[in-house]
C-alpha cells in the first residue's frame, strides 16, 4: 500500500463504509428475492415437484433434532474428507516425484493427460465390481475426482517455478529437499489453492453421487431415499444441507488461503 492510498482512505472513510453497507444490503435483498422466487415456484408447481421452502427448513430442523441428519452429514463428510485426503496426497506427491525424473515425466505425461478425459462417474460400476459395495468404490470415485485438478495444478506450478529462485537457493547451499519445501512449495501455493477451490466442492459432490449409487447412509442416500418415497421435501432438505456444507468448506478455505498467502501483494481497489 502506498502512502497515497492511505491518504485516500483517511479522507473518505464514510464513502467506503457506505459502499460496503450497500453491498451487504444488496446481498440480503437478493437472498430474500431468491427465497420469494422459490416460494412462488413451489406454490405454482405443487409440492411433488418443488418443496415449500418453509417446510424444507422445518424438515431440516426436525431431522437435526432427531439426530438423523447429523449422522448423514457425518457420513458424507467423513467420506469426502478421506477421499479428499487420498486424492490430495497423490495429487501433490506425484508431481514432486516426477520432478526428479524428467525422462519418466516426458514418457508418462501424455497418458496422464489423456486419462483426464475418462469420465470418472462412468467408472463407478467397475469400482463396485472390483471393490465391493462398502466405502471403497466411493473412496476411489472421490479420490480420483480430487486427484486430477490438484495433480494438474501442482504439476503446472512446479514447471512455472522461477528458475532464478532455484538457482539462488542452490548457490547459497540449499539441498534438493529444502528447495522442494521452500522454493517450489511456496511458489506453487497459489496454484494449489486455486485447485483446492475446485477439488473441495468436488469431493462433497462426488461423495453424494457415490451415496446415490451404493450404501444406506449419507446425504446422497438421504436425497435418493426421499426421492424413491416421493418425499420432495426430503430431497430439497438434502440439497440445501449439501449446499450449506460446501459453502462452509469454501469459506474455511478462503480464510486459510488468506493466512497462507498473506505475503502476496493485495490489489486494494479490488476490495472496494
Amino acid at each position, binding site marked *: 500500500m502506498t502512502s497515497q492510498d492511505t491518504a485516500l482512505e483517511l479522507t473518505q472513510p464514510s464513502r467506503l463504509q457506505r459502499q460496503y453497507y450497500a453491498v451487504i444490503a444488496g446481498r440480503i435483498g437478493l437472498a430474500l428475492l431468491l427465497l420469494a422466487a422459490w416460494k412462488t415456484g413451489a406454490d405454482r408447481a405443487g409440492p411433488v415437484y418443488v418443496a415449500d421452502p418453509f417446510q424444507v427448513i422445518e424438515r431440516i430442523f426436525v431431522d437435526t433434532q432427531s439426530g438423523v441428519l447429523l449422522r448423514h452429514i457425518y457420513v458424507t463428510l467423513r467420506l469426502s474428507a478421506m477421499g479428499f485426503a487420498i486424492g490430495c496426497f497423490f495429487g501433490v506427491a506425484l508431481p514432486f516425484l516426477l520432478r526428479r525424473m524428467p525422462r519418466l515425466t516426458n514418457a508418462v505425461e501424455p497418458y496422464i493427460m489423456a486419462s483426464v478425459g475418462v469420465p470418472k462417474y462412468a467408472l463407478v460400476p467397475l469400482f463396485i465390481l472390483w471393490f465391493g459395495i462398502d466405502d471403497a468404490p466411493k473412496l476411489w470415485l472421490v479420490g480420483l475426482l480430487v486427484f486430477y485438478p490438484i495433480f494438474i495444478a501442482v504439476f503446472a506450478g512446479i514447471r512455472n517455478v522461477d528458475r532464478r529462485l532455484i538457482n539462488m537457493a542452490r548457490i547459497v547451499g540449499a539441498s534438493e529437499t529444502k528447495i522442494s519445501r521452500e522454493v517450489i512449495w511456496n511458489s506453487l501455493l497459489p496454484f494449489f489453492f486455486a485447485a483446492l477451490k475446485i477439488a473441495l466442492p468436488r469431493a462433497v459432490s462426488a461423495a453424494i453421487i457415490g451415496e446415490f449409487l451404493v450404501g444406506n447412509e449419507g446425504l446422497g442416500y438421504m436425497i435418493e431415499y426421499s426421492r424413491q418415497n416421493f418425499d420432495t421435501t426430503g430431497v430439497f432438505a438434502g440439497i440445501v444441507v449439501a449446499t450449506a456444507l460446501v459453502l462452509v468448506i469454501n469459506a474455511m478455505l478462503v480464510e486459510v488461503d488468506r493466512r497462507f498467502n498473506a*505475503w502476496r*501483494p493485495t490489489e486494494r481497489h479490488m476490495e472496494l
Partner: protein
Amino acid sequence: MAGQPLLEIHDLSKRFAQRAGREPPPWVIQDLSFTVGEGEFLTIIGPSGSGKTTLLNMIAQIDSASGGSVRFQSQIAPIADPKALNPGLSCQIGYVTQEDNLLPWRTTLRNVLFPLEVQGRLNDETRAHAQMLIRAVGLAGFEDHYPHELSGGMRKRASLIRTLVYDPPVILMDEPFGALDAQTRAQLQEDLLRLWDLGRKTIVFVTHDIAEAIALGDRTLVLTRAPARIAGEHKITIPRPRDIRGIMTHSEFGPLYQRIRAELQ
C-alpha cells in the same frame, strides 16, 4: 596480489544449445582467460549483450561451459558437464545476480537469514551479524516487510547482504546497481566499499558503466562485444578509501576513462 591467484579462468568458451530448425547460435564467449587474486576487487566492463551474465553464470556453476576451465584455489571445477555442476561451489562462491531474486514470501530479515538457515548455521552469533548488516545498509525498520513492499534500491541492498551474511570467499556481482537512480546507486556503491573494507572479500563485479568500474575496482577488464574477448586490462591505483561522489576529479580518472571508452568502441 600475492602468490597463486584464487580464481583462474582459462580459455573459457560458451555457445548456447542449438534450437531445432535454427542456425547454430554464435559463440557468446570464446577463449576467455583471466585470474582473480585473493582479496582483489576486480571489475569487468562490457557492452550490453557481450556475455557478462553468461560468464558469471559459468563461474557460479549454474550454467555449463562449452570449453575451457575454471580453477578455484588451484582445484579444477568440472563445468563442462551440466550434470556435474556444483552451484556456488559448496558455498564458496556467492552470487549477487542482476535481478534481486528475493523470495517473495519471506520478509527482509528471513530472506537475509535464508542462506544461514539452509546451511544449518543459524545461531545467536550469525543472527546478530545479519542484524548488523541490515543496519549497515539502512534496512533497519524494514525487517518485517515483504520484497514487494520495498523499493528497488532496498531490494538490492537485501540481496547484497543475503550474500554477505554467509561470508563466501568469492562474491560475483552482476550489474547489481544497474537499474537504480544515480543517487541510490552512489549510496549503494559507498555501502559496498565500506562493507568490503571490513572483510576484504574477493569480488568479481560486472558492469556496463565505465565510471563504476573505475570507482570500485583494484583492476578492471574490458570485454569486447560477443564473442567476448579481453580488449584491455587496467590497474586502478586510486588510493582507498575512495570518495565515490568525487572520484571524477581524481587525476587518474579522466585518462583511464578515455582509454576504456576507446577500447569499448
